[in-house]
């Protein structure tokens, strides 16, 4: 069973602890601009949505990469990995990703994308609200569907 990162924007309070934990883990310093997860806040609506690499099965970044730097991991299921040694910094992956989840950082000459902290994502550890979860891929589909089913259940209970 492989695990995936699951985002719950409805639980996010906009604290950005995910960005802090991510940059601290990867860079050893607090630099949200270098975080692999980015939480965007809409202040008028009071809403924040975290965004990070979805480790796509059929990943555009992998397809477009001319050197194989962006590749599906052979050692870990559900991980699209970036190999900085063979990367030529052409940035095609950042263009190809439909979500903008691969970014180029000029300061460090790196591609920033989520590597799930090698299977123990710090953003999940430090999210105080359960807005980020690292769950079995099968459970990811089930739990969200069941949460909505629960709302139907409540509605039907009221009318029946």
């Amino acid at each position, binding site marked *: 069973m492989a695990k995936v990162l699951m985002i719950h924007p409805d639980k996010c309070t906009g*604290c950005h602890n995910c960005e802090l*934990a991510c*940059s601290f883990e990867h860079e050893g310093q607090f630099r949200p601009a270098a975080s692999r997860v980015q939480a965007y806040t809409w202040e*008028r609506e*009071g809403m924040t949505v975290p965004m990070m690499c979805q480790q796509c099965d059929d990943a555009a970044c992998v397809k477009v990469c001319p050197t194989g730097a962006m590749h599906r991991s052979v050692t870990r299921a559900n991980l699209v990995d970036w190999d900085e040694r063979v990367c030529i910094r052409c940035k095609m992956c950042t263009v190809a990703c439909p979500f903008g989840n691969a970014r180029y950082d000029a300061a460090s000459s790196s591609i920033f994308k989520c590597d799930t902290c090698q299977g123990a994502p710090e953003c999940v550890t430090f999210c105080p609200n359960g807005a980020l979860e690292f769950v079995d891929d099968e459970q990811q589909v089930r739990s969200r569907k069941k949460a909505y089913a629960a709302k139907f259940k409540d509605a039907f209970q009221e009318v029946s």
Partner: protein
Amino acid sequence: MFGWTGTTLRVDLTKGTVTREATDIGLAHTYLGARGMGGKIILDEVAPDTDALSPANKIVFSPGPLTGTFAPSAGRFEVVTKAPLNNVIAGSNSGGAFGPELKYAGYDALIIEGKAAKPVYLWIKNDEVEIRDAGAIWGHTTPDTTDLVRAETDEDAKVACIGPGGEHLSPIATVMNEMHRAAGRSGVGAVMGSKNLKAIAVFGTGAVTVADPERFKTAVMKARKMIQEHPVGGTGLKAYGTDVLVNILNQTGALPTRNYQDGYFPTADKIGGESLAAKQLVRPKGCFSCIISCGRVTKVDNPAYAGFGEGPEYETAWSFGADCGIDDLDAITKANFLCNEYGLDTISLGSTIACAMELFERGIITAKDTDGVQLTFGNVAAMVEMTRKAGEGEGFGAKLAQGSYRLAESYGHPEYSMTCKKQEMPAYDPRGVQGIGLNYATGNRGGCHVRGYTIAIEVLQNGAVMDPRITEGKAGLDITFQNLTAALDSAGACLFSTFGIGAPELAEMLSAVTGVEYSVDEFMKIGERIWNQERLWNLTQGYTTADDTLPERLLKDPIKTGPAKGEVNRLGEMLPEYYQLRGWDDKGVPSKAKLKELSLN
């Protein structure tokens, strides 16, 4: 350098110059940042007799050394300046993401001096700093200003700005950041207005570095756990916000009602956090790095008061609620939204409207003064309308926007202003809770709860229990809280993190971040130094022991109803001991020995 960025930014609006200075690291070690460093800068650079609204006053925006790290709920900054409301060193604390963004842009502090010839805003993008024309933005509300400035700078810039309140130089005007967070007290917004400075936009992509990452992470994990397992820090504040206090204080008999004429409000439950959660709460919100999430994203559907925004906090629910004899939460939240949009302090304005209501009911003012409005306690529509008028500076609203002391004094009755050192007291009646009265009376910025929150022990029993009705031991309690809070504010931490952690955890995180070893004693000593520094400034402003007092009503008129019926505040039993424990003489002047001990002149 760790924790601190090492750079202070100075902007002279008269000359239009921008300079970078090395942060004085010796001062950083002894004053930390934010409130402490900001206060030191004002003390050193602003002559005591400076008019707060003149170009000679300066305004400092300063985060702390913990700001921008993942120390729990430590993403705060302070707006420090000579206060237009009452000449004290205003240190107005705010959360959101503005403080961390200043750090990521590379600055420990932003010092603004002089006065621009015409309206401007400041655009800080890392090393690039521009003073830009704000002619088309002047006059707009704070959310609109934020959008307009972002459209001209960066859509993700963090914006601190003033609304019409600050433009009109209201001495109760706020600086708002990210639309909903307020540096609320003492009129800091008017100083921006007096400098023709409409807004500051910041975008930073740099880093805050840490001396000992492993030690810091360990300390943070421990502190997080302590807060998350605390019934208030971990559960209560997220579920109900600070407004959860309404019912608690009412049950204590210390919910000031109708301009402090009473201490009990029978229908308080209708304006409490439980009602708010049931009727208006969309979702809880946290400031940068916060694990508590006391913020309330709220929506009012009631067509009369429809709106969307954040709030109300407990103090606001009280000031526009119980203090005005009002139990309509929709109207209160609407007044809160209006204050945020116009940039006015909800505590001071609500209390000022309550004061006007008392003046009206006593016949000191009439409908002729109030633009025809029957300004009686409980008049919901009048309260909301007066809030709007104060924001616009229109008619009687212009007088309300001066705060209750100036209002009541202008009619010859300052005794109906519920203020200490001209600043409105918040929502804890000192007749029902003795220690908080001592804190209001000795508060360095006047009536204030967040710099000596004795309520945590006297009412909430956070870690210790003390009977709210007794005076014994309250001087020591108050001093401990005042010193702790001064250090905590200056580190960049949030007061609410003390619902879980204390000086040991804060000192440990600070040591790990900065690489400077802070023992608990040294941490508390920094707080004491800052408190005495603020006191020394107040002495230069002509404040004496006669000002370390409460409105006469609280000392002489007993609470009429509720659990604390018959109580008055017994300040005289606490104040001499307070001076003595502080190492001050009987005039409230710090002794030479105390100043030497604290390395103060």
